[in-house]
């Protein structure tokens, strides 16, 4: 009974916190809050893919882009915006299935380069496609409206985003806890053993790939409605690397880790940008600072905290608790 309370308590506290926060934030902080939620959604999917299916994707931003362009194009061509938002994750997942069939034969660094290549091809094609706005981008995306209600204010997007984060977490949690989730974990530890035990390796890998793409696509759809403008330049390769940094820093294969990693990185970058834009700082200071921090964080975490922040913290707490328990027993 007590353990169940302990298990659910952090979730309830975080949920209450996310609901209480938006009215208290200034407009500048609110936009950071929204972008943080969107980054968290993509990272949850990537963490699932990297941690449970053991596959590195350096092209996660391409699914984000597909979601954004799907939602944007549909609503620019005066389809109902809600349809655009719903189509965004579907289109991203379909795209993932399409490229996943040939690409998921690859492993490790081969797959990393293949996903990177997919994103470069996609960006280049979109940049030359006049029907998608070309390199200039897609402008004049209307605000999201459902029925008669229009999401006009930032605060409504904050609630929409974090509702989507909650949905993503619930779906991911159920996948992990299910029978197929156990199959996935077996797959990540040893593909041969999993296959021998009857886990449909190929199908599961493809399904996780598509699911992570759907999360990124949904985030991209919200992003398009929130900003009202998207361009190939909104989805650089560096963005894909940022998601990898967030997933690795938080801890691969832990859903809370994705949330913690995204929060830590977004807040850190925000602080650095504030420092970098102080008067007297050179114009390139913000980008130099963020490159340096992304790079160093990735190196330090991979070498010294290979399981990420959340598992490391959890283990430290557990060690503390067992210590106190043994002391009490004496």
């Amino acid at each position, binding site marked *: 009974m007590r353990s169940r309370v302990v298990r659910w308590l952090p979730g309830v506290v975080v949920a209450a916190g996310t609901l209480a926060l938006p009215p208290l934030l200034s407009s500048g902080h609110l936009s950071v809050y929204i972008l943080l939620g969107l980054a968290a959604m993509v990272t949850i999917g990537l963490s699932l893919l990297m941690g449970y299916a053991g596959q590195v994707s350096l092209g996660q931003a391409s699914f984000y882009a597909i979601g954004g362009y799907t939602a944007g194009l549909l609503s620019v061509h005066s389809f109902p915006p809600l349809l655009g938002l719903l189509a965004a994750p579907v289109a991203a997942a379909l795209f993932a299935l399409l490229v996943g069939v040939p690409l998921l034969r690859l492993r490790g660094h081969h797959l*990393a*380069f*293949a996903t990177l290549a997919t994103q470069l*091809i996609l960006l*280049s094609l979109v940049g030359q496609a006049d029907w998608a706005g070309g390199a200039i981008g897609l402008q004049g995306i209307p605000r999201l409206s459902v029925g008669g209600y229009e999401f006009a204010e930032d605060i409504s997007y904050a609630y929409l985003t974090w509702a989507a984060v909650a949905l993503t977490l619930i779906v991911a949690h159920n996948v992990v806890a299910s029978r197929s989730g156990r199959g996935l974990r077996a797959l990540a530890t*040893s593909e041969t053993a999993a296959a021998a035990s009857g886990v449909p390796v190929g199908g599961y890998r493809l399904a996780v790939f598509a699911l992570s793409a759907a999360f990124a696509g949904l985030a991209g759809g919200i992003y398009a409605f929130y900003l009202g403008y998207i361009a190939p330049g909104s989805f650089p390769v560096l963005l894909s690397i940022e998601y990898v940094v967030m997933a690795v820093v938080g801890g691969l294969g832990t859903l809370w880790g994705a949330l913690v990693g995204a929060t830590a990185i977004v807040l850190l970058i925000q602080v650095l940008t504030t420092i970098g834009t102080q008067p007297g700082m050179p114009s390139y200071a913000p980008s130099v600072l963020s*490159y340096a921090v992304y*790079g160093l964080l990735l190196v330090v975490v991979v*070498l010294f905290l*290979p399981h990420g922040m959340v598992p490391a913290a959890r283990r430290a707490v557990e060690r503390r608790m067992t210590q106190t328990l043994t002391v009490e027993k004496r």
Partner: protein
Amino acid sequence: MSELLQYLITGVGGGCAFALVGSGLVAIYRVTRVVNFAQGAFAVIAALTASTLLATGLPHGLAEGLAVAVGALTGLLVGLVAIGKPGTPPGAALIATLGLGVFAYAVEVLIWGDQPRSFPGVPGAVEIFGARFQAHYLLIIGATLAVFAGMGLLFTRTDVGRALSACASNPYAAKVVGISVTRMGLVSFAIGGALGGLAGVLVTPIQLVTFDYDVTLIVGGFAAAILGGLVRPALTLAGGLLLGVAQALVAGYGNAAYQMEVALVLMLAVMVWQAARKPIVQEETA
């Protein structure tokens, strides 16, 4: 006809850069099993260093040589971080080199700014059978061939080269006969850095270099090296030249905007074909 010849020569010149970056990847991967994502950064750092040294009045040749040395030093530093800590698995080292590649952006922007840079190469133009092209292309092609021949000699005729090859084929056996595998790994990173640096120095006169040009180079280099499974330098050279010529032909007869796609699609096709022919069973680590 002369048009085709012109495309072929410019294509081979461009392909040489990919082949050099790719051979750097191969040199490192053979010995350490690490795919070095910072390989493109070596080229960019060397190119930018050369542009600064030339601007301070150093003569051609010396400036480029120093820049290649800087590339080798950068390679050594990357190697120290990536494989210096004992027990780092290759997968983690891959992510670490990715981090170092991003960190290199910070250093490059801090020192050289984010504007594209270039410097003059071999002046003048050459005309062969009616095809006109910059004389610099001949230098690129000549230097690349010399480097590949030199690498072949290094790996087969010298003690260091034999030690490197020993680590590549069986690290355990190499350790048993007294070769320090970690030290050889660092040597291979330095060689990779020098090869990457050479690619950057050679390509800058025909191609503006910005700090994020490394993505193009690393993708092209990987595409070239993957043809030989990341372990065979000769096939890497062939892959790089094939890639460069294919790009030049597409740019010449088709649309220059699709140059990048050619390299990428070619790389994807080769990888998927290799995987289909010989399914990769994930290496089990105890």
